């Protein structure tokens, strides 16, 4: 029980009831670009833009993988991963941006598991409907709203066709894809038709964690928990896909192509850079056998592997991992080249969402010029259309 006092309280100073703003006020004075924000219109809205025969047959979003949600979602039946809310319209998006002190957003699709569906025409139809809804009803609301366009990545020609259909729209700044549920890594030459189309429109490739279940690995088939599936799996997958992009010559064939990895973590970047370089210096022979090198008649990469990461790859920040030891956090950021490679992201409305506070609340590790680069400067350099 609370302790009692009986001295009379009339003379006491009153505590003032307030509604605190959890967003650090410094955030509202700086430009913030959120590179990962999930937009989830109701399925009936998307269905309204589907072409036949999909419209008549797809009454629900065809979930391709087992539904699996974080603990808070289990206490709110029906919300799925969107534990912080749902943005279904352009007006919804603007309201959330204002709430969190965000100036510009790059929307990712809320229906973010299409590549998990083993039916390429269905993926392509959903992607086209989503893109058409953005163009018709969302982009006109505000120029603060940008988006990654959806494609069917599993069928590269279908993906390329969709990019050529809508890629001219200036509020599309990138192409959304995943690194978790494709059988062959994003760096494989089979996806070159997609990269050819992206090159024509100067679009950034977004490699986002998707589906939670890397379907093709028995290791994760044996996993049982959210921590294994979402806490760990994306990092391993991101490393594998990024390594493939580099050593299978993607950036040699497409030297201007930029890629942003999302939700794959970042602590592994220094190890990957050092290890790729070390292996390249000692065991580069089979690089001559990959499709792009065979076609080009080349036997080696144009640069050291780590250099491609510095030149072509960026990482969205959510979920940020911050060691409590201040020196460790500063060193980790330095080892990851964070000042130049990191672009702020919130991942709203998913359970692991990160508001931007951490960027300005660690000035001993992130000085003010670096704060501005993380919050918007690096994104402005990355996205040609911003």
């Amino acid at each position: 029980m609370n302790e009692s006092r009986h001295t009379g309280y009339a003379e006491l100073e009153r505590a003032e009831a307030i509604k605190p703003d959890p967003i650090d006020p410094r955030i509202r004075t700086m430009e913030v670009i959120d590179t990962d924000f999930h937009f989830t219109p109701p399925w009936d809205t998307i269905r309204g833009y589907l072409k036949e025969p999909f419209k008549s047959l797809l009454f629900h979003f065809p979930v391709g993988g087992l539904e699996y949600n974080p603990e808070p979602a289990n206490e709110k039946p029906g919300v799925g991963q969107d534990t912080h809310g749902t943005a279904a319209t352009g007006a919804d998006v603007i309201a959330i941006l204002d709430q969190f002190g965000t100036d510009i957003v790059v929307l990712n699709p809320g229906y973010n598991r299409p590549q998990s569906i083993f039916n390429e025409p269905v993926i392509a139809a959903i992607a086209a409907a989503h893109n058409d809804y953005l163009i018709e009803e969302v982009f006109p609301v505000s120029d603060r709203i940008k988006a990654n366009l959806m494609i069917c990545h599993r069928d590269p020609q279908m993906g390329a066709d969709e990019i050529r259909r809508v890629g001219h729209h200036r509020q599309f700044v990138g192409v959304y894809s995943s690194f978790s549920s494709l059988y062959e890594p994003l760096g494989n030459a089979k996806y070159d038709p997609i990269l050819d189309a992206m090159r024509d429109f100067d679009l950034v490739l977004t490699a986002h964690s998707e589906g939670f279940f890397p379907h093709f690995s028995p290791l994760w088939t044996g996993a049982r928990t959210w921590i294994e599936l979402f806490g760990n799996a994306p990092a391993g997958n991101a490393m594998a896909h990024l390594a493939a992009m580099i050593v299978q010559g993607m950036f040699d064939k497409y030297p201007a192509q930029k890629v942003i990895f999302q939700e794959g973590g970042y602590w592994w970047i220094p190890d990957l850079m050092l290890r790729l370089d070390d292996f390249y210096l000692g065991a580069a022979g089979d690089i001559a056998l990959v499709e792009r090198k065979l076609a080009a008649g080349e036997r080696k990469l144009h640069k050291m592997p780590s250099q491609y990461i510095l030149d072509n790859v960026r990482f969205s920040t959510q979920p940020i991992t911050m060691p409590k030891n201040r020196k460790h956090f500063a060193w980790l950021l330095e080892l990851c080249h964070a000042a130049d490679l990191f672009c702020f992201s919130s991942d709203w409305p998913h359970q692991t969402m990160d508001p931007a506070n951490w960027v300005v609340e660690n000035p001993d590790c992130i000085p003010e010029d670096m704060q501005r680069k993380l919050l918007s400067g690096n994104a402005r350099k990355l996205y040609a259309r911003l």
Partner: protein
Amino acid sequence: MKEYLLGKIADLPEGKGRAFVAGNKTVAVFRSNGKIYAVANRCIHKGASLCDGVLSNDGKVLRCPWHNWPFDLETGGHCLDPSERLRTYQVKIDGDAAILCV
């Protein structure tokens, strides 16, 4: 330590949080199972406003609205790692009023 008047107990909603400024501190106050609790409003994880948190486990656990970190409302300790701890504040009862001590 200084005492601040939070107001009438009846005005504090059962099972809900409310934030108060007392001096230079912002405190989240909860009324749960007939008792008044006060913890630092800022979550030690990533800075959410805990007054917007949800009570669970029969009103004994405060869950952060951003990332669901669970804290024992009585002790302020994280339910899985008590070394992670919210600062708690004493609340005294004076008749029908709640007094915050910070």
